[in-house]
């Protein structure tokens, strides 16, 4: 699996035209379930930015308010928490990606995985396991690109720069 799963992949799996459209549709369902009061208006992006992380091959961010995680995408850098509606703000949050994101992504993709069971790639990556258990496809902003590459090199995995 030569990619990280992002919100764009989830949207595509669920047959939505964009991440924004996926958020709008899912948020409407959450409002119906009385998770929070108002959905996103599809336009407003504000408040404190959330930081991108990678967990088990999936690109995510954590809600600054309630801690829920949501898929995010570098193509559409918006975050809407389906647990608290970004504190019922009606706003999506901006998502902060590091400058060397493309190289971080490449360093993680170089780490082999055993895909898990599932009919689509989102599920397969969600349930995947690392071939080398010390080399998970996981990353947080406190880990530098150089540290990722060093970990890879320690197990004989080179990355094209």
């Amino acid at each position, binding site marked *: 699996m030569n990619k990280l799963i992002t919100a764009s992949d989830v949207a595509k799996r669920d047959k939505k035209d964009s991440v924004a459209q996926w958020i709008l549709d899912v948020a409407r369902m959450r409002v119906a379930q009385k998770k929070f009061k108002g959905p996103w208006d599809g336009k407003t992006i504000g408040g404190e930015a959330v930081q991108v992380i990678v*967990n088990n091959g999936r690109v995510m961010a954590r809600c600054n308010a309630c801690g*829920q995680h949501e898929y995010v995408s570098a193509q559409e850098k918006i975050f809407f928490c389906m647990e608290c509606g970004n504190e019922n703000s009606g706003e999506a949050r901006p998502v902060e990606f590091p400058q060397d994101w493309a190289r971080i992504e490449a360093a993680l993709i170089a780490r082999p995985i055993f895909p898990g069971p599932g009919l689509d790639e989102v599920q397969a990556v969600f349930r995947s396991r690392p071939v080398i258990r010390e080399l998970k496809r996981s990353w947080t902003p406190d880990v530098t690109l150089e540290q990722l590459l060093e970990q890879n090199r320690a197990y004989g995995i080179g990355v094209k720069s």
Partner: protein
Amino acid sequence: MTDYVDVPIIATGDWIDAAFLNQYWGDNFRAIFQGFAAAGDMPYAFDANTIAPLNKPASIGLLQNDENGVPSYLIGGSAMQVVRKSDDNTEIVYGDVDIAIVKKRICTVYNNADLTAVLPNYTEMDVTFNTEETDADDWHSTVSNSHRITPLLAGYYDVEFSVYCGGGAGGFYLRKNNSVALGADSISNGGTVLLSRRSIYMNGSTDYFNVRAYPTGGSNMTMQYVAGLGPYFTARFVGK
């Protein structure tokens, strides 16, 4: 040691089913409990990916971690080494300095036969003790330096020496390290001598008590073995 599997963060859009629950929760719980058959064993994180068993201690024990965080048990006497009082007696500190395994804190030795001092006048000789009545802490040896009691626990001691002489004239010194006089007495024509001092500080390693005899009457001075009378030599720990 057993591997377990990191549970991925679950986000909106992930599908959780029975297989997921079995894979992550069921398998992980099995991984943790494998190898912990004995009651009292505990699991600990050997590293970021591995659960290892910490086997229960063979006897009463204290749990400790080394500088790398690896847990183990201190059992029996070594458990005493976990904490101790500081040298200035103001706080609890770690380490085994000045810690000794002490059983009875008393040493009583004697001679089971008459001991005759055949010496020129005014020449000292060691009073030796060839039998140990009580010496669980190994403060005395009947083989080497049998005239000494060397306490192995630093602190204050009461010390006592008693002897009965059937005849002769002379005296006895009770000393620390054969240099510090703790007591002295003499006889002119036989008799009983009892020497004692209280609260003498000993360093717990090299300091020792000893007794010296010195004849003065120009004839033999026989220290007679009389059960209950002497020659007996006792040191007793009374406090730090």
